[in-house]
């Protein structure tokens, strides 16, 4: 177990493509940090740099007390879970679990003890003598996790481990990973593009965009106080409505709030919009589409004078139908202010 420290880490690919711009990040011992961002944001590259599968152009990465820049993946004492599991197809599950330990010269009885222990925790004991191709996706996923656990490494690195599973299994495995990480207390870095997965798993969430960190913090902090337009749009589903203040001012009757200077875009979470009347900026529009999700309904509303559709969330069933007029209010307390040019939050 160890902390992971990244100082001024940069990655420049051949042809001067910068994948990671001087990035600092400290991951505490036992913490589960999730790197999230759209594809191409550099999250996987960063993970692979920590693993030692990509070289580091600049800066230092240390695991525990050691700077590991020049170390081979095996010497870094980390374990990695891959998106496609990367199980060795010709080896049985047991051999898959053992392989890393054998290469390290672990004594036989210790190997057996650890493999049996990991198999018990992950409930894969009945499959130990099967080949990976005889297992289902979820079972393979468990074996891949088992391969990481038996090593008892300083850190787990997860590279989108659940993307190949169906939605239901993904939910189950998510809970399982969380529980496992809590009980083993192993420092973990988890890469995903699924913001729901990121929100629910993370002790701390790192939102990345274009090779830079946009914001780091507890998931709920990021949800409540997104530091930039990008984070505001990325975290939360359905995404936050981001409206230019000038257009809003032109169409909204009633009072405009006193927003801090520099604010030219306001954001509001779809579930904070109040359908009907009340305190705040009153608007009305036409419902274009209703998505009944079950417990709540998502309304896509077109407002005259705004060139984008607003998303409203109503608890339970929608009170209006498609093509109906709807009045709604943006409560002032729920507004987030942003500056368009810098892309940052204004408080």
């Amino acid at each position, binding site marked *: 177990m160890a902390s992971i420290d990244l100082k001024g880490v940069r990655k420049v690919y051949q042809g001067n493509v910068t994948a990671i711009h001087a990035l600092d990040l400290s991951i505490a011992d036992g913490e589960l940090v999730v790197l999230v961002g759209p594809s191409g944001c550099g999250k996987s590259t960063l993970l692979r740099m920590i*693993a*030692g*599968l990509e070289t580091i152009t600049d800066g230092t990465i240390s695991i525990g007390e050691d700077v590991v820049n020049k170390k*081979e*993946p*095996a010497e870094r004492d*980390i*374990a*990695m879970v*891959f*998106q*496609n599991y*990367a*199980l*060795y*197809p*010709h080896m049985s599950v047991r051999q898959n679990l053992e*392989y*890393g330990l054998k*290469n*390290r010269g672990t004594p036989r009885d210790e190997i057996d003890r650890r493999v049996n222990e990991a198999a018990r925790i992950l409930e894969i004991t009945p499959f130990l003598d099967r080949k990976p*191709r005889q297992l289902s996706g979820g079972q393979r996923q468990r074996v891949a996790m088992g*391969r990481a656990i038996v090593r008892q490494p300083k850190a787990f690195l997860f590279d989108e481990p659940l993307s190949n599973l169906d939605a239901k299994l993904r939910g189950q495995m998510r809970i399982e990973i969380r529980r496992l990480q809590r009980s083993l207390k192993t420092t973990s870095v988890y890469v995903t593009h699924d913001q729901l997965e990121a929100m629910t798993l993370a002790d701390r969430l790192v939102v990345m965009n274009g090779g830079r960190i946009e914001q780091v913090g507890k998931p709920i902090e990021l949800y409540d106080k997104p530091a930039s337009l990008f984070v505001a749009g990325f975290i939360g589903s359905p995404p936050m409505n981001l409206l230019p203040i000038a257009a809003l001012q032109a169409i909204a009757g009633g009072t405009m709030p006193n927003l801090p200077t520099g604010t030219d875009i306001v954001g509001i979470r779809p579930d904070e919009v109040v359908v009907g009347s009340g305190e705040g900026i009153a608007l009305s529009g036409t419902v274009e589409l209703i998505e009944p999700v079950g417990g709540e309904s998502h309304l896509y509303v077109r407002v005259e004078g705004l060139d984008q559709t607003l998303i409203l969330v109503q608890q339970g069933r929608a009170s209006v139908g498609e093509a109906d007029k709807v009045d709604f209010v943006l409560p002032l307390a729920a507004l987030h202010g942003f500056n368009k040019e810098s892309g940052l939050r204004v408080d």
Partner: protein
Amino acid sequence: MVENRPWLTFLTHFVLICGVVIVVFPVYIALIASTHGPTALSSGMMPLLPGAELWNNVVQVLTEQRRGVAPFWLMAWNSLWMAIIITVGKIAISIISAYAIVYFRFPGRVLAFWLIFITLMLPVEVRIIPTFAVVANLGMLNSYAGLTIPLIASATATFLFRQFFMTIPDEMMEAARVDGAGPLKFFRDILLPLSRTNIAALCVILFIYGWMQYLWPLLVTTDPKYYTLMMGVKRMAAVADADPQWNTIMAAVVMAMLPPVLIVIFMQRLFVKGLVETEK
């Protein structure tokens, strides 16, 4: 095709049957000829039904000593060695070179691949004179080394392994690296076992390739000790001042055909599996 037209079915079968007859007929003639006595074939009328002399002909081939022809068992032994050395050598060299080309980044990697690939255009027949000169200057005439080494370099096998290695996901190699397997361990523990079926398929092709070599052994061997079966059969037919004994020659031909036929029959499954499916 999804259409089901009787005349089309008839046509396809007709073409196929014609093809089979054209291919099989000479083999059938050889088989029939090997079962008749010496007079049956020299009479001018080729019998089309089997005779009763097969055993005698076989015994004669195995025991007879002729001038200018090595004993049958020695030639078979030479052919066998030649085929085995070529097979093992080709597979060993090409799997290693494919490994280098696919998994290592080194200057000239692409160039190396294309150089290997281009040699596909230069089979032994094309480069036979320079190759002979090299082998002669190295003093490898009349030796197993001379018979096999120039035939071992193989672009086909390298290419086949390269294609196979490229279908193995990169993560497999990365997982092995994280698991503490170095390049050699990865090769031995992961890549070799995964290539098993490919190696088996190549064994079949390459053994037959080695077994069938005619031109090259003809050039580099002058000592009957190193004659191979393919040249031996030819030499049996080239007798001076007498009619060739077609019955024994054909018996020798049939016996020379046996090993490749057996290999194909017994390794057919593996062969198809190796070329078609991959275990991933």
